């Protein structure tokens, strides 16, 4: 599982769900923040006509955090990073901590399982939503013209 994929799933998962999922793994590593958690903004860009030159659409809130694990036995010094839209410091810190832990062999499998299940939950939600939208799709039919 790639880091960007993990980051995406963690950023798209509601914080409460992530908190519960993380607690269920029972990984207890002390960490400390080396950057943030810090809330700022990202300038969001669009493209003219969807495919043309970029332009600045407007900004969105963004929170980031970078942590390092304290425990010397798991090779501390590896940084974990997290970014998430919005202003939730805890969410960004959680993502960064999970990213840091996922770099260690002994945690990786458990973490990847969690990511996989969060991802399939999200896909199920998207599927559900898409079916609701699909019900509003227009079925055109042509009226038979009389002779």
């Amino acid at each position, binding site marked *: 599982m790639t880091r960007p994929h993990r980051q995406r799933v963690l950023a798209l998962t509601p914080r409460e769900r992530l908190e519960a999922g993380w607690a269920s793994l029972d990984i207890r590593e002390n960490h400390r923040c080396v950057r943030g958690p810090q809330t700022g903004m990202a300038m969001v860009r669009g493209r003219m006509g969807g495919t043309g030159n970029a332009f600045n659409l407007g900004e969105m809130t963004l929170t980031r955090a970078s942590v*390092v694990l304290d425990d010397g036995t798991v090779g501390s010094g590896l940084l974990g990073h997290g970014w998430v839209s919005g202003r939730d410091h805890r969410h960004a810190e959680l993502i960064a901590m999970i990213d840091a832990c996922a770099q260690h062999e002994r945690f990786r499998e458990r973490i990847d399982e969690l990511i996989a299940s969060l991802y399939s939950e999200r896909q199920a939600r998207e599927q559900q939503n898409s079916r609701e939208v699909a019900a509003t799709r227009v079925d055109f039919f042509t009226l038979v013209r009389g002779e």
Partner: protein
Amino acid sequence: MLWPALTDPVHDSQRLFRQILQAMSEPGTLHELCAPCPPRDASIGPALWGALLTLCDLDTQLWIDPALDSPELRDALHFHTGCRLTQDATLADFALVTPDTLAREIDFAIGNDSYPDRGTTLLVAVEYLSDDGPWQFSGPGIETQRCLGVGNAHALMSRLSVNRSRFPCGLDAILACGTRLAAIPRSTRIVNRQQEDRACMSQ
């Protein structure tokens, strides 16, 4: 790859910014900055590192003299400030330099008459900084005159002393040595007392 930064980024940078502002508004006064240690391989002191952390962000472009450049400094700057590094000194909002840098013909931005604020601010790592030295300042923010010693920095000081001829365009400079910092904005008149003395004697 642990780079020391401000422990409380919001309040620490406000405090440091206030000190830099004070230094700018009273040219030549010395200020002790309580700032974190710079990255290990960087040849700058805590005061200059604190100034970089305070002044640089995603919207600023920084030019670094090769003599001060190091991979760790770059990584740390990027990690904490997000500032962009530029090879083109004319685009630099800030330039991290030594006094010798100014001996070379490098074109820093001096702003223009509509936007004089677009000049480069030099962040100069000096080897010596005291309130007793050959350079004598006068001008805004100085009641009569003020003296500064900056070690061997002739190229730097002569570059800054021609600032007056292009006012309101020009270069501002923040000089730092260890935890100590002083500023010479473009509005300051600079005279070398020793040269004046010599000139007097030769007459």
